[in-house]
């Protein structure tokens, strides 16, 4: 096949023309990343550093009777061993920052080093610092831990039973009505969202489809493993280098967990090798800090892949039930959903977000959604790209497909008729602003793939599926400090770690506003001492929120340049106009570069800055089309062709918008077809390697066709919507609907792995 260098189609629903926005410059940090010079967390080595490793529980659920580290401490080259006894008691403090603030710090602390009990296979029990990683690994084998093994509870439906073993003895259910349960329970929280009268809605329906779905645990699968290097100085200053989605969040967690003043903690964000929601919290940083404090040396720690899979935060498995009522002419009358997600070993799953997304693409007169956050003996789960939405919308989009089949209504027409649009309700949110679901659906309908009949092949089971997806996006807080240099270039400090080209998408917005080429902006991801508060790179928020901060900082710089020129030109600052990067007044004019030179002579060096917490993130919709072939003998599903359509608001940096779409699709395909944690009955994770937890390779997927739709977000000066997360939402449903088209099977578990599809085919025959 010849190289296809075409620029992917873009469908604009606005008339704005920009100079920088929408172009395809080479990213600012690209060179270092193709030469191997970019410095990721594990690439740092400090003089005199020791190496830390973590001892992990071999049991899924057990009481720790005793820990004896004396043999390990006696090993040559071992400098320190720590357990939870070395951590301060967090009391009743609640977490701040991160993607899920408001959880008890005691749970985070106990997840980092087990306190009295282990809650999952791989739970950290102790940590050592030694002269090199091999000695540290030897030392782990010399730590004697006595366990009293308890019965594990692995699935939400078991953990919710009244007679289930209770994992956290003092956990009482936070009920949806604000009351607290009376007996200790594995159900940490219940939630309820309701709009309209669902009973009346279902009574009006001519057809009700009610289905149950289950989910395995999946991991974000970032290629870089977690790491942290800490240097605790004798005056209490703590320096930490790590690859996290948010340096400020790590700083806050270190302060919370170590009871250490935040002003003494300095976190340096190194390049980060993927995160997808899984690197929004500390695992190793506090341990490295404590070990450094105890030994007086810098301490470097890095997980191996088995540690990452066993003991970081995968995204939940669980259960979703979706019931929808429709009239014979295909109008939705009511929706009901019930979601129960694994929180893992401590409370706090992403079930609430799943609840609020389950019916998001549709406008319906009534809906009721119940959610349950359930503690089980698996690792504490975390966000994974549009957290909770993929589970929820796999269920609802499969039910929608069944409705369309049953009523013989075209799935595009059905979705267009029932689509959510501006002004329609959202669960627990203000009504929708301008959104682009209808525009995405129309673009999918008009796409090359949808317009080309599926190619049949004799003896092959092939099918086509379509599905919608929604994700909110998040605002949070972002900061930018931009310094005008004397040559007219700008050094732009931002707090958002760059996981996929956001240095450039932020710099492009700054350049557009100030009217300079993007190559004149040098974007730097700064440490926590050097830039204002910035929350995690997550929630599809960086190009939206940090981009807004950059736009505001550029306007601040414009004002300062105008004030400087006003003095020189002896005019009022507000008499100076700015257009296309040129400042003018009274027949005088200066480009940004000329202004910088003039101001330098006066000793004026403008610094534009902004910290912003925007709330009008706009929301993101996607529509995907999958063509598949199902191998009847093996149950293997092959993706033949795939088109992803997405409303980007305005695509600031299109090649990387396409990249987010394509990457999200392939993660979603992995989730749909293959990826799943496999446990034995005792709760041991059996596939903690990248051989056995098999993510898609280049050979498993085709090229992913992308269509960017631009329905500008009214809540952003350039119309930006976050793009990073929603592309993972539709793939499992699009693939499931294609499998149904090919075989007549309705798959109700993710992943739809070969053995499951094969078994379903056998049962069908």
């Amino acid at each position, binding site marked *: *096949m*010849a*190289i*296809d*260098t075409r620029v992917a189609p873009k469908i604009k629903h606005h008339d704005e023309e920009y100079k920088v926005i929408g172009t*395809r410059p*080479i*990213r600012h*940090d*690209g*060179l270092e*990343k*193709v*030469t*191997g*010079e*970019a*410095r*990721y967390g*594990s*690439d740092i*080595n400090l003089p005199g550093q020791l190496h830390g490793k973590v001892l992990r529980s071999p049991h899924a659920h057990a009481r720790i009777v005793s820990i004896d580290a004396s043999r390990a401490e006696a090993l040559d080259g071992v400098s320190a061993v720590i357990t939870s006894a070395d951590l301060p008691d967090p009391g009743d403090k609640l977490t701040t920052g991160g993607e899920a603030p408001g959880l008890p710090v005691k749970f985070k602390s106990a997840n980092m080093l087990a306190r009295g009990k282990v809650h999952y296979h791989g739970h950290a029990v102790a940590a050592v610092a030694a002269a090199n*990683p*091999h000695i540290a690994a030897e030392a782990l084998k010399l730590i004697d831990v006595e366990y009293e093994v308890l019965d594990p509870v692995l699935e939400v439906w078991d953990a919710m039973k009244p007679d289930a073993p209770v994992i956290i003895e003092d956990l009482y259910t936070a009920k949806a009505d604000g009351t607290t349960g009376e007996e200790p329970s594995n159900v940490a929280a219940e939630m309820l969202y309701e709009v309209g009268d669902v009973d009346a809605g279902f009574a009006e329906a001519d057809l009700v489809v009610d289905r149950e779905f289950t989910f395995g645990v999946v991991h974000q*699968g*970032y*290629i*870089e*493993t977690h790491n942290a290097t800490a240097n605790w100085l004798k005056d209490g200053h703590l320096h930490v280098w790590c690859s996290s989605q948010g340096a400020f969040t790590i700083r806050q967690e270190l302060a919370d967990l170590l009871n250490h003043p935040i002003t003494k903690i300095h976190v340096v964000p190194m*390049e*980060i*090798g*993927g*995160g*997808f929601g899984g690197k929004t919290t500390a695992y190793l940083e506090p341990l490295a800090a404590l070990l450094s404090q105890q030994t007086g040396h810098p301490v470097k720690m*890095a997980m*191996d*892949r088995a540690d990452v899979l066993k003991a970081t935060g995968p995204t939940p498995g669980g259960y979703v039930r979706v019931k929808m009522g429709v009239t014979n002419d295909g109008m939705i009358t009511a929706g009901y959903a019930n979601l129960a997600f694994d929180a893992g070993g401590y409370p706090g799953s992403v079930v609430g977000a799943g609840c609020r997304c389950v019916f998001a693409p549709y406008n319906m007169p009534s809906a009721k959604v119940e959610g349950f956050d359930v503690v089980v003996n698996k690792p504490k789960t975390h966000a994974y790209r549009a957290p909770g939405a993929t589970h929820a919308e796999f269920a609802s989009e499969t039910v929608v497909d069944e409705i369309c089949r049953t009523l013989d209504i075209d799935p595009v027409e059905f979705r267009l008729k029932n689509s959510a649009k501006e002004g329609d309700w959202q669960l627990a949110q203000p009504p929708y602003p301008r959104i682009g679901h209808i525009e995405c659906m129309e673009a999918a309908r008009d796409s090359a793939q949808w317009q080309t009949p599926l190619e049949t092949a004799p003896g092959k089971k092939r099918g086509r599926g379509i599905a919608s997806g929604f994700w909110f996006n998040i605002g949070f807080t972002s900061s930018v400090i931009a310094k005008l240099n004397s040559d007219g270039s700008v050094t732009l400090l931002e707090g958002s770690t760059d*996981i*996929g*080209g956001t240095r450039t998408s932020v710099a492009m917005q700054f350049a557009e506003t100030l009217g300079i080429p993007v190559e004149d902006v040098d974007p730097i991801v700064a440490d926590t001492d050097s830039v204002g508060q910035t929350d995690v790179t997550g929630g599809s928020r960086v190009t939206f929120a940090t981009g807004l901060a950059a736009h505001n900082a550029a306007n601040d710089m414009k004002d300062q340049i105008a004030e400087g020129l006003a003095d020189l030109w002896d005019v009022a600052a507000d008499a100076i106009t700015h257009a296309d990067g040129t400042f003018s007044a009274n027949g005088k004019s200066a480009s940004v570069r000329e202004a910088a030179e003039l101001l330098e002579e006066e000793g004026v060096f403008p610094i534009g800055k902004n910290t912003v917490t925007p709330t009008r993130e706009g929301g993101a919709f996607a529509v995907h089309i999958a063509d598949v072939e199902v191998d009847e003998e093996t149950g293997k599903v092959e993706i033949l062709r795939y088109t992803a359509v997405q409303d980007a608001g305005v695509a600031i940096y299109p*090649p990387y918008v*396409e*990249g*987010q779409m*394509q*990457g999200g699709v*392939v*993660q979603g395909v992995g989730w749909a077809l293959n990826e799943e944690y496999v446990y034995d009955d005792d709760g041991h994770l059996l596939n903690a*390697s*990248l*051989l056995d937890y098999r*993510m898609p*390779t*280049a*050979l*498993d*997927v085709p*090229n*992913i066709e992308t269509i960017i739709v631009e329905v500008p977000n009214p809540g952003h000066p350039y119309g930006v919507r976050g793009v990073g997360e929603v592309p993972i939402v539709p793939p499992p449903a699009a693939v499931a609907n294609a499998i149904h088209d090919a075989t007549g099977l309705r798959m109700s578990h993710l992943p739809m792995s070969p053995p499951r599809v094969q078994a379903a085919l056998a049962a069908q025959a």
Partner: protein
Amino acid sequence: MATEILSGKVHVQTTINGEQVDFLAEPRESLLEVLRDHLGLTGAKEGCNNGNCGACNVVMDGALVNSCCVLSVEAAGASIETIEGVASPEGLHPLQQSFLENAALQCGVCTPGFIVAAKALLEENPNPTEYEVRWWLAGNLCRCTGYDKIVRAVLDAAERMRAEA
């Protein structure tokens, strides 16, 4: 190649990116550990430490290997090429340029491995099909890009290199 045991460490002589390099290593240390932790060549990354992700790819005596699965002492007498040796003083390798222009990286942590692996492919097969590129690169995991732009970048670089040859 003679090696010498010095206080539990082995003296290894090898050639890395065309230059003779001597190092001392424990026999249990992998080539990846030596490259990264002793020699400061941190372009090769550890993603799995058991040969499943390709982030640590280097070329050893002409063969593409996972350096996490090579013991450092096996490097004695070998010629090793790492990502740090791919660009020349004159500029980037066409693959590096093509990765930049095709936006074939996101987080970038797998990128050195992909470029080293793709370079080995194009030296063996200057005119691969899309399928051949995908087959060859199936030993390298990327979790960000979905592979589309990587495959295009490799095909694009192959075309440029054929035009220059």
